[in-house]
């Protein structure tokens, strides 16, 4: 396993209160694998990413758990070691590509610098490769784009540059937080294809955080479904999307207009997402669940095989056998 997160809990403390953003989260990512982390706002998917990157804000603290990357626990690393790991082995792509680009440096120079540092070649050669890498991410007229500044490019172009950046110095693990959410569908399609290539050709593992199940279906091998800071279901994409087991996953799929018939109401989840300051004793989803049992409100379920004997498909639900 390249990355193994075990029992990770994260709390945020503010002047007024304490918010438990993550509660005993466990999952792993294998070499060359694309794993989708799916959830709605407040599900803790971005907090998970920031924990791995060591970029949590000062008021957050990890109360339990471990994050092991290539066998070593990231949480015991010094700040400096973590930072160098972030530059070299763990890459990141965010929803807003501007955060990953130097605002006052030309695109070509940014890419060339990374390539120059990564491979032992001359800067001139690195620049040539930088232009080539722009062409590789379907940018027309790469020479021209290489001479531009980030602010001169559209959002889709910028995101492609960020991907090119990630590809020219391929990280072992790429953490992508809603990389295509701000993009048009046609560009999203291309960016996703590029990420798939990155995983297949260079063996990069990708943790793809998204709210879009369609995106997951297109590129991910495995899915982790999160709700209110917990993993509620995990399995191969096929298992989770075709035979979802957790009522939340079912509701999430049923809520999509993609599969609904015109005129038929969409499956809606009643109520609001829970108050993370006061987690219920039982299942976090129980207050909104349409098939909750008495035990759901009293005892917290744990991840267990969805079907007996299944190694991949796991679900945290008391009603899984019903």
């Amino acid at each position, binding site marked *: 396993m390249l990355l193994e997160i075990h029992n990770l809990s994260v709390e945020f403390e503010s*002047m*007024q*209160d*304490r918010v438990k953003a993550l509660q005993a989260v466990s999952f792993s990512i294998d070499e060359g694998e694309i794993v989708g982390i799916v959830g709605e706002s407040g599900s803790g998917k971005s907090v998970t990413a920031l924990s791995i990157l060591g970029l949590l804000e000062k008021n957050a603290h990890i109360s339990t758990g471990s994050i092991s990357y290539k066998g070593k626990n990231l949480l015991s690393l010094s700040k400096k070691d973590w930072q160098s790991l972030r530059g070299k082995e763990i890459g990141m792509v965010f929803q807003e590509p501007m955060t990953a680009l130097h605002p006052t440096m030309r695109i070509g120079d940014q890419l060339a610098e990374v390539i120059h540092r990564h491979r032992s070649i001359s800067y001139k050669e690195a620049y040539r490769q930088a232009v080539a890498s722009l062409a590789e991410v379907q940018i027309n007229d790469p020479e021209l784009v290489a001479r531009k500044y980030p602010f001169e490019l559209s959002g889709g172009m910028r995101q492609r540059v960020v991907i090119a950046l990630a590809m020219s110095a391929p990280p072992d693990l790429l953490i992508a937080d809603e990389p295509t959410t701000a993009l048009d569908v046609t560009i999203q399609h291309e960016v996703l294809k590029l990420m798939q290539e990155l995983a297949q050709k260079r063996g990069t593992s990708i943790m793809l955080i998204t709210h879009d199940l369609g995106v997951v279906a297109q590129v991910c091998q495995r899915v982790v479904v999160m709700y209110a800071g917990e993993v509620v279901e995990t399995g191969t994409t096929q298992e989770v999307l075709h035979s979802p087991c957790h009522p939340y996953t079912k509701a999430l799929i049923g809520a999509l207009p993609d599969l609904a018939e015109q005129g038929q109401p969409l499956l809606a989840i009643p*109520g*609001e997402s*829970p*108050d993370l*300051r*006061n987690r*219920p004793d039982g299942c976090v989803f*129980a*207050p*909104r669940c349409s098939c909750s049992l008495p035990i759901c*409100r009293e005892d917290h379920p744990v991840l267990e095989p969805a079907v007996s004997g299944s190694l991949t498909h796991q679900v945290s639900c008391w009603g899984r056998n019903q």
Partner: protein
Amino acid sequence: MSGTTLKTESLPAARSAKTVNPFWYKIRRNPLTLLGLFLLLLILLLSIFAPLISPYEPTKINIPERFAQPSADHWFGTDEVGRDIFTRILYGARLSLGVGVAVVVGAGVIGTIIGAVSGYFGGRIDQLIMRLMDIILAFPALVLAMAIAATLGPNLQNAMLAIAIIKIPVYVRLARAETLALREKLFVKAAVTFGIPSWRIIVRHIIPNALSPVIIQVTLDIGDAILLVATLGFLGLGAQPPTPEWGAMISIGWKYLLDYWWYPTFPGLALFLASCGFNLIGDGIRDILDPKANRS
């Protein structure tokens, strides 16, 4: 849903912390703002209770006791016609505070309205108004105030008007900048699609949302306005004797500085403390409300 609300009690630490008002929390952490607040409160209380604190009248002439030294009877001494200086400072505080607040609030209200109208409509009206404001701003503030006050005739009302005129452009610019940003907000666009008349949109949406920077500016400007009123008074263009106005007191008193040091010194000190107090509070409020200053 009820399950989540039921358990609000489970975190006692969180609840007790919640009672801290963040505004006061921040003010308390800033000793200079606290000092400013203390000064202002002191001056305010002294001026309100002036008749109770002092047995003297501010304008009653008492020639036998002229130029009395500071003593138990006359804490800050007396002036050239025997009036108690402490008493005159207390009544002067009423005047200074009142005039300072009135002038700045007046300028703020007028400036905000002009700025909001100018920014909302844009085009030629905007051009015209902003050029006019540029002209006012092009003059040194004090020189322009003196010129206006001198032209209109030296008295307190005209001095106030002069100071208000030189303060208005600041508020016009502030409100206009806010308005330009607000005009693009969806709730303003929504109001346009409802068919609500422009003046109503300005009153309902633009002005209330543009107000916070204006309020900060007002607190910053009051100290300045008090100083300007005193300056005009000192130059003989403001309040006229025997009105107990700090600037006018200093103006007469400084001639006696060498022989009767207390005469100009105490009004000067009062002026210094009052404008200091307002500036400290203004800075404090700006630090609290300005998100950029917050981050550091």
